């Protein structure tokens, strides 16, 4: 009986805990200069993780049966920010590759667009190619560089992007120089006049207030989409209104259905309500303890 109780306890632990479940299998691991890049499979899903606690730190996931279908919700929110906010973008910059579901989807949805992805870690790019069907071609290239260094260079060489997606964060480590007023100002100056910034950020911890005031300091009012993740959508030329967002969502709805995304479902998430402490200190190159604030 005692043994049974023990067994029962173990079963409960393994189903309730965030650790590896019995079905979860590690199919690849490689150590890079920055981290360990792991690939897990579980119940027909394949995920890229940077920690062995894969449930909470999933960078990117695909369904093995249908790799096109988005497995993570934040991808839908990022895509909504890219597609529903203006004319179809011709040049897109993505900072942070992960498994590459976002660039892969955009490459298909926007066949004429030039997509530049900046990824600091060559191991992530390798794993994305090998396990997540990420493919480069003349219109979609990966630049192996620190995001900030790339942005500064692109400004100097006079490049402009219609949409810039910031997706370089991980649930436990933030490159702090990519979350400052100065960096966002640089990103802003890299946009075309109608350009849009879409940032995947944090929905909890004290950092929420600080990143909100930092984005507000650079972009003014922004759309704040909150689910498990938080996606910020900002446009220096002024935010598009609800009607135009809906119109574009309807336009893209049939295509997005192919990715397992109901375009209209994302619309209620668009909010401009400022639900943060407006007095939170703005993050700057001089003051950027993002990781300490995320504890």
């Amino acid at each position, binding site marked *: 009986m005692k043994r049974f109780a023990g067994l029962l306890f173990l079963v409960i632990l393994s189903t309730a805990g965030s650790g590896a479940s019995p079905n979860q299998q590690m199919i690849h691991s490689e150590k890079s200069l*920055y981290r360990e890049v792991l690939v897990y499979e579980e119940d027909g899903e394949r995920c890229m993780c940077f920690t062995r606690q894969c449930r909470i730190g999933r960078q990117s996931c695909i369904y093995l049966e249908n790799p096109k279908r988005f497995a993570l919700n934040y991808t839908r929110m990022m895509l909504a920010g890219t597609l529903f906010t203006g004319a179809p973008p011709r040049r897109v910059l993505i900072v942070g590759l992960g498994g590459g579901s976002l660039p892969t989807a955009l490459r298909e949805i926007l066949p004429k667009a030039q997509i530049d992805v900046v990824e600091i870690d060559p191991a992530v790019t390798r794993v994305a190619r090998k396990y997540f069907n990420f493919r480069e071609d003349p219109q979609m290239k990966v630049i192996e560089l*620190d995001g*900030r260094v790339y942005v500064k260079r692109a400004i100097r060489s006079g490049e402009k992007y219609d949409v810039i997606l910031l997706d370089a964060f991980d649930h436990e480590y933030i490159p702090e*120089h990519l979350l400052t007023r100065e960096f966002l100002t640089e990103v802003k100056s890299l946009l075309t006049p109608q350009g849009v910034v879409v940032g995947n950020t944090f929905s909890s911890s004290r950092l929420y207030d600080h990143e909100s005031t930092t984005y507000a300091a650079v972009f003014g009012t922004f759309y704040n989409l909150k689910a498990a993740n938080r996606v910020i959508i900002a446009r220096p030329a002024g935010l598009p209104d609800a009607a135009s967002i809906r119109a574009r969502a309807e336009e893209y709805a049939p295509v997005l259905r192919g990715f397992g995304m109901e375009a209209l479902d994302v619309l209620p998430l668009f909010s401009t309500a400022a639900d943060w402490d407006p007095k939170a200190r703005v993050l700057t190159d001089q003051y950027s*303890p993002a990781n300490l604030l995320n504890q």
Partner: protein
Amino acid sequence: MSGRLLQGPAVAVCYVVAFWSGFFVMGVELLGGRILAPNFGSSIYVWGALITVFMLALSLGYLAGGRYSLHAPSLKRLGGLLGVAALTTLPVLPLSGLPLEELSIRITDPRYGSLAAAVLLFFIPTFFSGMVSPYCVRLLVDAEESSGRRAGQLYFVSTFGSAAGTLLTSFFLVKWFEVNTLLIATIIVSLALSVLSLLVAGRRA
């Protein structure tokens, strides 16, 4: 050689200077990572470049500090070394803006760019900081047989200072203050200790 060069409070001041110099070096090194990040990123090689420059500057500083202690060693001169290390840190403030950006344009490989930046900003102050410890040893050693013990105590104090500087800066100080505020504050503490050394040395003379 007979007896120790320093007595009473001067001994304590010598240890405090060694502790603070260790604290100062690591505090500045961590802030250095933040100063380089906007232009060179925070890749592993940026930290590699920074640590290389600090280690190199310290190692040469040790040599120079030992040599400098051969001629009329005094607490006054020790205070002078600390003061020079603090004052040569001041240029970091104006250099960390546009000049670093300029450098990152000239040297496009972020590895060599960050190496050059680290040399430009931190080599000289860290060299002078490195001179402090061997110079302190000279001031504290009272007899041949206890020289190893004195050196050990000094290493302890200065490396403990480095540990404290690393922990406090990375865990707490950057959460409360701006990078430049911290730099100026550490420079002020160094200058205050430098003046203290001069005062204590003057009183004994």
